[in-house]
């Protein structure tokens, strides 16, 4: 029976979820992030700090109670009446483990792929897949640039399609507001403008905006010019420096500055970003610089919604791993001994290899992959050898005795292959 807390199970099979999680962790490992697990259950007692004078029940006041409310945390009671809390956010859970993981002053890069449980609007518990990264005590703007770059890299590896990055900055908005006059303060002590933007209420925000945030957004060149002319201070300079890093990462064309984007959660304290693809009605992920209450809990991170990714990748179009093979191999009367060792060697050499059952299927897969923007090579495995149909991958072609050199029929295979079926 399907786990009822996984609402999107129909679209997102467990297999697909796990592939997504694995791809995220593999890509992040190349950026220097190591995987960390966090406890599913945490004891509540001893961590709550009721606010002075608050008469509420334990957990209804104080920093952690407040945090739990943001996320819609689910609590359980054990047989002894002891309250426990289910993991409700990967970042928060990971930060609780940070002190034991700390490795010194160079910052700490951690990756996760995990399940969190939150209450939905009706109060029902829902399981959500989160995968992402945290760079604790990250420098600015290098940390933010790295987070955006790594997140886009992950989505590229997953075959999520064209990605756009929207970038905002709560600290910059605050600085601009102060320059335009003291901001109106809202309930949470932040500016009323930021609160309206967090709620998605741009009508209310327009009435509070003395800065003209909408006019300060747009493409990189446009924003550079407008911000430089806007006056401002350290946050503006840091934001402009971040733009330079993102352009250097090759993300300039994908980037849209939107200073009305301030992140859904009140803990975002600096640059924030969201990642979108046209095929999904909601962003695939969010990230930014955060500062959580309750001690030294600052860093830069991002989280991808695994359920949304699974829904995207389960539909027509590319799938992770299967979608972007470097090599599609197929057997043509080749015995097992001529298939598996050869594929293993290719994989050891760093290639992603998909084995098709026959030639027709292999060409179909290659054609689908080509339509999704990759260009896999076709490898025919025969009883007496192998044959690349078209150019072999670069390293293979360079290997003596490999690639075209092993053709058994003398067919010219150089040049880009073209699907024949």
């Amino acid at each position, binding site marked *: 029976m399907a786990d009822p807390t996984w609402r999107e199970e129909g679209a997102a099979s467990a297999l697909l979820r796990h592939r997504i999680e694995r791809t995220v962790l593999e890509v992040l490992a190349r950026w220097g992030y190591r995987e960390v697990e966090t406890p599913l259950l945490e004891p509540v007692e001893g961590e709550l700090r009721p606010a002075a004078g608050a008469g509420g029940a334990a957990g209804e006041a104080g920093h952690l109670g407040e945090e739990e409310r943001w996320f819609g945390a689910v609590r359980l009671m054990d047989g002894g009446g002891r309250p426990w809390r289910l993991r409700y956010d990967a970042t928060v859970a990971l930060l609780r483990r940070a002190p034991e993981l700390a490795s010194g002053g160079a910052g700490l890069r951690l990756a996760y792929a995990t399940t969190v449980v939150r209450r939905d609007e009706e109060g029902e518990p829902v399981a959500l897949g989160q995968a992402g990264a945290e760079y604790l005590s990250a420098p600015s703007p290098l940390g933010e640039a790295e987070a955006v770059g790594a997140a886009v890299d992950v989505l590229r590896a997953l075959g999520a399609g064209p990605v756009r990055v929207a970038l905002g900055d709560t600290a910059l908005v605050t600085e601009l507001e102060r320059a335009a006059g003291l901001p109106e303060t809202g309930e949470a002590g932040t500016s009323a403008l930021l609160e309206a933007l967090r709620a998605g209420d741009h009508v209310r925000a327009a009435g509070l905006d003395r800065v003209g945030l909408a006019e300060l957004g747009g493409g990189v060149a446009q924003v550079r010019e407008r911000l430089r002319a806007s006056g401002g201070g350290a946050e503006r300079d840091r934001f402009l420096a971040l733009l330079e890093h993102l352009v250097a990462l090759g993300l300039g064309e994908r980037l849209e500055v939107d200073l009305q984007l301030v992140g859904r959660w009140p803990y975002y304290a600096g640059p924030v970003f969201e990642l979108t693809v046209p095929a999904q*009605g*909601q962003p695939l992920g969010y990230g930014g610089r955060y500062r959580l209450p309750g001690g030294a809990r600052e860093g830069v991170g991002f989280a991808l919604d695994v359920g949304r990714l699974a829904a995207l990748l389960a539909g027509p179009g590319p799938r992770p791993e299967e979608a972007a093979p470097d090599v599609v191999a197929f057997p043509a009367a080749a015995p097992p001994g001529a298939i598996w060792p050869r594929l293993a060697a290719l994989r050891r050499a760093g290639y992603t290899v998909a084995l098709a059952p026959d030639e027709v299927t292999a060409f179909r897969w290659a054609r689908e992959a080509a339509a999704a923007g990759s260009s896999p090579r076709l490898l025919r495995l025969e009883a007496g050898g192998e044959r690349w149909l078209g150019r072999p991958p670069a390293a293979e072609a360079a290997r003596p005795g490999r690639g075209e050199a092993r053709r058994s029929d003398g067919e010219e295979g150089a040049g880009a292959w073209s699907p024949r079926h």
Partner: protein
Amino acid sequence: MVAAALNGGGGQAGEALLTLALPKGRLAEEAAAALRAGGLDVPGEEGEQELVRLLPGSAFGRDLRLLWVRPADVPAYVREGAADAGVTGKDALAEEPQGVLERLDLGFGRCRMVVAVRRAEAERWPARLAGEAGGLSVATKYPRLARRYFLERHGLRPRVLELRGSVEVAATVGMAAAIVDLVQTGATLRANGLVAVEEVLPVSARWIVNPVSLRWKRPLLGELERRLAALAAGEVAAR
């Protein structure tokens, strides 16, 4: 091609296509008129009979697809990306606020969301709140909004009875002590012996946008928004 576009249901609409979710009922004609004035070739009320309608070339030369749905459902279509943008009342957004961007107050469809009670009990309001035997009961089509309002304004968690329509009846026959509902002229309240005692929210039609569509269709949506904003400014000034 037309059939394919009409049937291309789930997920985000294609980039070459602008899909709008529009409210059936009292806001329909004004919503269509506003979009026409904003430069879209949108048919009048007779178009409502066809719930999904493709209008080739009607959005500044791009194809336009209209989804005519209940006003309360417009945010869901926009949130899920089935529509890029839509028109609905502030009441629907206040009830279900997550995941869409509320971009413009369009200025039409103005009314108030109020708490109303039986006329004979109006003088005892709000003192009655504390003394209601068995707890306060409130009938409404807006259960989340009503709960939030009573908690924030009065610190109370009333028993909320969710009804689909003709909410006034619940208070008139005593099933609920109060109702939370929209009032335009107050005629329905008066006809049923009720009186408004508190305003919960001023309501008008809003232009809402899917956050992903805003990223991917910014030129098209931006142009439309600029025109709608100019019209709305005129509308507000005229009132």
